[in-house]
């Protein structure tokens, strides 16, 4: 789980990786695409695109229903992904892996189901000040529904949790029932000490939920080692298809949690008076899932596992260090988020330059970055900015691309000042 980079291993060849991403050959405004918006969604290797389309071309059928051959094959392919993910995040059982449409759906499931199970008037839910709106709004909604209070761990000037306040918010409150925090900040790149905070929460019997959207493609995620109750992530930020996501849950808790959505596939028996629920994981998987996407997600995880994870992480750290150095050389540029432990995400503001103008002029030069509040408005307020420009790296990015971004930024700043 540590982000500490090992030296780049000789097994990691970025050109070989790039060759597997068809989109990297695209031109944008006539210029080679430099894709630095991986925290929003990563690009997909050919293997993933092929796996998804092969499902439609050869085994398209609904899962878990038919007795016919195609349905069996589709079911097997989908369930193979469940096992791939179980292994990847080191869950105990495959049925602890619930398929969703993405992190947002996973967190809504968590919030609404846990809310019903646990929350009463006067209870508290604890989140942090760097959460994505997806890990704020669902909790606000359930807190309002059950008369609970949302409390927030403050963020330091370097973009980290104020750990001593976090600890006291947990230790001094008898009414805190749920802790829901991000593993990695999508805006700042901060790798949070989730394991330590979860340990504190568990001492108090607090249920812990981790938003792992930004961690899954960059860190080793071991849910048993973290000790969390629930862990949410998206497939599309981890080289997989859009519309796929996972909610991992500890078996014992999932058994107690009520279903969130009702429909087909999630029932055992239905009469017009009452229904009984299917067993895990199907209790939480109402309706036909994104079968093709799930199969693609399995392929994405296997693709990542074919590489030396440490070498990949080290490469991304190298890009982060290089970008930090190059960007800081630009007059008036300030990096928002200077935590010691970061993934390859760099958010910045430049004096006298609006992030939206910068994003537009970078796009004209073929460089895709994110601008705005990154769905973290409370965090923007914390740093007193209306938005930032964010570059986020993946394993297929190169040092040369970072140089191109730095040069394009200097050019844009010159035009705008």
């Amino acid at each position, binding site marked *: 789980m540590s982000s500490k980079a090992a030296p780049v291993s000789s097994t990691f060849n970025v050109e070989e990786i790039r060759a597997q991403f068809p989109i990297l050959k695209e031109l944008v*405004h006539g210029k080679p695409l430099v894709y630095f918006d991986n925290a929003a969604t990563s690009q997909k290797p050919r293997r993933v695109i092929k796996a998804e389309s092969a499902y439609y071309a050869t085994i398209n059928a609904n899962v878990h229903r038919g007795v016919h051959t195609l349905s069996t094959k589709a079911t097997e392919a989908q369930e193979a992904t469940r096992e791939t993910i179980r292994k990847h995040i080191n869950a105990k059982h495959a049925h602890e892996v619930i398929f969703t449409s993405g992190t947002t759906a996973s967190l809504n499931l968590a919030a609404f189901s846990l809310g019903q199970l646990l929350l009463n008037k006067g209870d508290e839910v604890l989140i942090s000040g760097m959460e994505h709106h997806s890990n704020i709004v669902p909790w606000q909604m359930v807190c309002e529904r059950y008369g609970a209070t949302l409390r927030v761990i403050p963020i330091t000037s370097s973009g980290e949790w104020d750990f001593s306040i976090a600890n006291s918010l947990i230790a001094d409150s008898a009414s805190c029932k749920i802790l829901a925090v991000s593993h990695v900040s999508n805006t700042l790149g901060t790798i949070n000490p989730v394991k330590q905070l979860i340990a504190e929460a568990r001492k108090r019997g607090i249920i812990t939920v981790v938003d792992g959207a930004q961690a899954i493609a960059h860190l080793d995620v071991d849910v048993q080692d973290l000790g969390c109750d629930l862990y949410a992530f998206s497939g599309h930020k981890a080289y997989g298809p859009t519309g796929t996501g996972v909610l991992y849950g500890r078996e014992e808790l999932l058994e107690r949690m009520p279903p969130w959505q009702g429909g087909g596939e999630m029932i055992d028996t239905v009469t017009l008076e009452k229904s009984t629920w299917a067993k895990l994981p199907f209790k939480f998987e109402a309706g036909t899932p994104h079968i093709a996407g799930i199969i693609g997600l399995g392929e994405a995880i296997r693709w990542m596992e074919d590489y030396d994870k440490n070498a990949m992480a080290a490469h991304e750290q190298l890009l982060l260090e290089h970008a930090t150095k190059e960007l800081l050389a630009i007059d008036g540029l300030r990096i928002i988020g200077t935590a010691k432990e970061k993934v390859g995400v760099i958010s910045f503001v430049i004096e006298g330059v*609006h992030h*939206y*103008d910068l994003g*537009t*002029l970078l796009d*004209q030069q073929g460089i895709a970055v994110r601008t705005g509040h990154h769905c973290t408005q409370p965090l923007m307020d914390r740093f007193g900015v*209306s938005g930032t420009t964010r570059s986020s790296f993946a394993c297929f990015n190169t040092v040369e691309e970072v140089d191109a971004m730095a040069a394009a930024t200097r050019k844009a700043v010159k*035009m705008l000042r």
Partner: protein
Amino acid sequence: MSTSTTLAQTQQELISEFALFSDWQDRYEHLIELGKDLPLIAPENKTDDNLVRGCQSRVWLHAAPQNGLVHFTADSDAMITKGIVALLVRVFNDRTPEEIIGASTEFIDTIGLRAHLSPNRANGLSAMIDQMKRYALAYSAKS
């Protein structure tokens, strides 16, 4: 400012101006320059009510009737957006409500601006035009 040129003529002027530029840098530099000529909104009118919804950067647009014409002032915190508002204000400013309501906005596509805007900003552009036409409609109803 001058009403001697018609709305259609101003649009044509802009089309000719932008036709001079062959690369993105010149086009955007011109847009940024246009922003500097924008009739700025008075500070007291820079209110949330005058914010144009649908823009990612903040855009304030104010309209006031002046001798039967609609007078626009505006501002934005982003320079490119400010250039786009300026371009629209140059076309629509000090026209009669009827001229504004009936105006075609094809010139935006002819300039090649929409193709160079992200969908978000293109939405913002539509939002600005809609807002200007709504002001004109309000004043035409009053008169």
